[in-house]
């Protein structure tokens, strides 16, 4: 259950300032791996995840199979295709990545309560409390890697360090599915001679300025006078020197201490403007399900449902409706969204008044075409999971069925069961 000691208590029993042990878990070629996970035909082949495969976008992630061809993140798709003509380009699908990312985070939380999601494909895990002897560190990291691979189906590299910075730097040393354990001294030995631009947080601009000060290597930066750095970079200056020495005091801020989300939403831009109410309904059902699933994964339920529509002429409408109770049921969200759609669809005839839509008296024209649909769930409360049993057996059965569906999706992927109402979208 959700009870975890606060940070202060978590350290209880150890000396203040005692060496921390922090893992930086970094998913390997994350977007590409997820695409390969969902589509077995892509496995073992070079895959490029990008914005628009036919347009002028850049490579967001290249699978490891594509990397020997010299393809790197940020490279224009056209150039990547020239280097590796048989690579498959896949348009990025954030919904999938979020889903897998949440699964990984859930798994990490079973190893330590102190998990800080850092981006969609990386997280810090503090395991200071979980480890008695330092020799257990590698074992634990190894267990995490195996669990991620076995239960989620993607791979992760783990960097181990006495602070977040060193852990983060270490995770990039051996990839994919590598493991690197650095003490501060190891860090200095490994990165000391390397250019400052290798350090996390030091980009091109900062490197150039450091270079102009004669600070080209990490060792040079580590030995630079504080005043010089403070004078050049202001308040962040001395921090640069510290990280170059492998020092970092920032805490791992656990997931549950981060501010709660205010709402959970998904929106979808349609491939082409759509006016068919059946297809629009299919999209709303899919979005409702995604929102509900996210809410359930995060143990939230919401009382306010809102629908956003953007018409083909780029007008945006929004309406919301409160429920008397918090929900995390996709069908319930869909029903409300659907009724909001009925109120909004006739376009600018809808005016906001106290959150409700009031229709002006206009002749009902033909249904308009829409380019974007969004559904979100607000008024969130933590509800993990609702222990209230229901009086009417068919409602209890429905809820039991949905939790079985969640378990199946959790184990076998989102696509294992879909609502019949969304199948219209497959064509």
């Amino acid at each position, binding site marked *: 259950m959700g009870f975890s000691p606060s940070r202060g208590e978590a350290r209880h029993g150890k000396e203040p300032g005692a060496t921390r042990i922090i893992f930086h878990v970094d998913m390997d070629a994350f977007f590409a791996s997820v695409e390969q996970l969902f589509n077995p035909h892509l496995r073992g082949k070079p895959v490029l995840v990008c914005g628009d495969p036919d347009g002028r976008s850049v490579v967001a992630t290249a699978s490891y199979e594509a990397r020997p061809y010299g393809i790197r993140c940020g490279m224009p798709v056209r150039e990547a295709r020239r280097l590796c003509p048989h690579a498959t380009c896949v348009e990025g699908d954030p919904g999938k990545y979020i889903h897998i990312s949440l699964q990984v985070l859930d798994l990490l939380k079973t190893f330590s309560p102190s998990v800080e999601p850092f981006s969609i494909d990386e997280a810090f895990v503090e395991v200071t409390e979980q480890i008695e002897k330092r020799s257990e560190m590698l074992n634990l990291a190894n267990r995490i890697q195996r669990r991620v691979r076995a239960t989620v189906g993607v791979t992760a590299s783990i960097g181990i360090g006495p602070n977040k910075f060193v852990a983060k730097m270490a995770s990039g040393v051996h990839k994919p599915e590598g493991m690197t354990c650095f003490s501060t001294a190891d860090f200095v030995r490994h990165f000391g001679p390397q250019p400052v631009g290798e350090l996390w947080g030091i980009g091109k601009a900062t490197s150039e300025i450091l270079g102009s000060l004669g600070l080209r290597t990490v060792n040079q930066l580590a030995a630079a006078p504080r005043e010089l750095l403070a004078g050049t970079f202001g308040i962040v200056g001395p921090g640069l020197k510290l990280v170059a020495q492998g020092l970092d005091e920032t805490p791992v801020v656990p997931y549950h201490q981060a501010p709660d989300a205010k709402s959970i939403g998904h929106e979808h831009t349609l491939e082409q403007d759509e006016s068919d109410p059946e297809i629009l309904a299919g999209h709303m059902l899919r979005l409702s399900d995604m929102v509900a699933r996210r809410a359930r994964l995060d143990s939230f339920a919401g009382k306010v449902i809102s629908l956003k529509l953007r018409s083909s002429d780029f007008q945006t409408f929004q309406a919301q409706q409160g429920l008397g109770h918090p929900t995390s049921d996709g069908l319930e969200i869909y029903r409300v969204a659907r009724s909001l759609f009925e109120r909004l669809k006739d376009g600018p005839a809808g005016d906001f008044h*106290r959150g409700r839509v009031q229709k002006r008296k206009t002749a009902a024209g033909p249904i308009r075409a829409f380019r974007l649909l969004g559904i979100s769930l607000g008024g969130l409360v933590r509800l993990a999971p609702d222990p209230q049993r229901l009086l009417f057996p068919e409602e209890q059965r429905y809820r039991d069925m949905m939790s079985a569906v969640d378990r199946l999706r959790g184990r076998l992927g989102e696509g294992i069961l879909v609502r019949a109402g969304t199948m219209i979208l497959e064509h």
Partner: protein
Amino acid sequence: MKFSIHQKDLQRLLTVAGDGVPKKTTLPILSNYLIEARPAGVRIAATDLEISISTSAETAVETPGQVAVNAKRLQEVVRELAKDEVHVQVDAGKFKMKCARSAFELYPMPVDDFPTLAQERATFSARLPAKTFQALVDLTCYAVSTDETRPALGGVLIQITDKEIRFIATDGHRMSKAHASGKFPVEKGEPREAIIPPKALIPVAAWATESDHEVEMELSSAAATFKVGATTLTSRLLQGPFPPYESVIPKDNKKQLIVGREALLSSIRRVAKLSDSVSHQIRFSVRKDRLHLSVSTADIGAAKDDLEAAYGEDDLEIGYNAVYLQDILKSLDSDKVLFTLNSPVSAGVVTAVESKRDATALCLIMPLRLQD
């Protein structure tokens, strides 16, 4: 329009009709009272389009007429007036009111905008004593759902047979079925049931109890009308279907637990102070002739209490929503209550042992799944 009425009578009429004024509305006219002066007296009406209330008093009317004035302001002003005769008139398009040395002018709205609810011929009528009606309302209205997506559960199902009247309310987690016996002239083909929102039933019960008048109830296919003395409330019926409530009343609950109502209520109030703010979970540990109550909430703390009880079956651990239990215990009016239980996942039945009320209720409550 010109009439006079005592401040006390006017304030009473405005308070009664005030239950029909919507708190929020998109139609400005609904924020008004419709005041009608007729030769026999004055009538004040208000509506939110779901219910409409009309109440009247005999008084001296000089010139008949109609006017629509802002309800909130009029009520506030009248409350502050001297306890004296109030002289009301509409003159040069203004609503004027004089009382003792004070004088007020309000700008009315067009009377024609005021909506009238369609009247249909009643197909059924019944009379209930004030106490019976009040008991039926108290025993059920708490269980009505506040979920806007399930409109039928937002009301009380009233069912009438020739021998009894039943009120049933449920929100899907709990249910209350109350009934009172009587003789009702039910004939074939007439509507015998209707779903009515609590906002119609609660004021009617209050007026009846205050005045000790009977409640005259009339049903038509779209509305229900309640008359209490000179006051009439008409409510639109909520659309069904109401769920099949009879089928969820457990028949094989064999374990009987009898506890003092007041003692249990105060014990729940105490321990529930530490319960989870969303689930309000408390735990019943039922032992031989004892009931232990406990709460344990992550990040908050734990509480325990224990009561004497009459119980002779196997030990039982059940979780309940403390708020639901309190609603039930507050609605019952007996020294002791009887829980008939079966398992930690099935509905429990709560009834009064020797009810003092003019109606009896069967309350169902679904448990909360206990962790661990």
